[in-house]
């Protein structure tokens, strides 16, 4: 899944149109969206925990911050469910590193997730457009 341009996202609309200052995404929303985000990142190729967190920070300009163990339990669940596979490799410094990649079973699930998030996104956008117009 490609992340949408933040300028067009409902959350950005909320921030800019409703004049809310710089904000962090709530813990609940983080938890709900983490799975779709992880699958979206892994669609671009294999990655590991720290790099995924940095990628999300970068894409959200720091608004989405995965802390308190948001990411790793999600990765382990996806691995146990067979949606991602893992292999042990080495970092540049020779440290052991666990890399994750999507399995073929993940593709339809990811498509389903995308449709659901787009539906939610669409509803919110229409609601907020009406309210903020």
């Amino acid at each position: 899944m490609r992340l949408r341009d933040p300028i067009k996202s409902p959350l950005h609309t909320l921030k800019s149109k409703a004049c809310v200052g710089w904000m962090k995404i709530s813990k609940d929303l983080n938890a709900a969206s983490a799975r779709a985000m992880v699958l979206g990142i892994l669609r671009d190729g294999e990655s590991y925990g720290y790099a995924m967190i940095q990628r999300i920070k970068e894409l959200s300009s720091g608004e989405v911050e995965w802390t308190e163990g948001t990411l790793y339990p999600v990765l382990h669940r996806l691995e146990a469910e067979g949606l991602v596979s893992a292999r042990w490799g080495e970092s540049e410094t020779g440290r052991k590193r666990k890399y994750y990649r999507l399995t073929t079973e993940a593709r339809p699930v990811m498509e389903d997730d995308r449709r659901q998030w787009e539906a939610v996104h669409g509803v919110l956008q229409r609601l907020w457009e009406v309210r903020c117009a």
Partner: protein
Amino acid sequence: MKPIERHPFAAELRSLPPEVAAELEDHLMEALAAGLRAGLGEEEARQAALRSLGPPDKIGRACLRERSRAGEVPGGLSWAGRGMVVGWLALGAWSATRVCQATDPSHASLAVVTGLACACVTAALWVRRATGRAPWPLVAWSWTLAVAAAAGLLGKPWQPWVRDGLGLSPTSLAAMMFLGAASGTWLATRRWMVMRRLARSSSSAGSPAS
């Protein structure tokens, strides 16, 4: 795999299964390096890395919980576990009724028996939660109770004190001995199974040889 004791986050990761510890250690080391690059001192960068991750033991438990939900590692209570929980609760309740029935219970024996009953309940509750964390204190406690019960049951000089002072009959001592030994062994075996399953799943994912 490198021994975790040699790393700056050894204390925080020691209680976790090796595979989870290695993964979190990689995250922490990356965050530490980023902190050092940003000009933080070593300890400051270490603390910042820990803050960026969150409590490692909590995350490790969450990872194990997620795997157990998916059926990859044993989670929840088996019938043997449920039997032990019921056994401990029954023993605790029985001990409490003995105290109530005693005509002249000394404060000491009352406290000891109540303490034992509470320990039984605590153990029963912990059994459910012991899978994802290091269960060794509970294993040690269970075996200690078993040994103490065996000593009370078999050691002749102790028998009058145990029976009259604590109001514990041979039947309850035998039950405590059995439950203590069974709980300790069950918890230790369960923990070993979780570790073995994790090691096996990591090997099949291509875990490098140590």
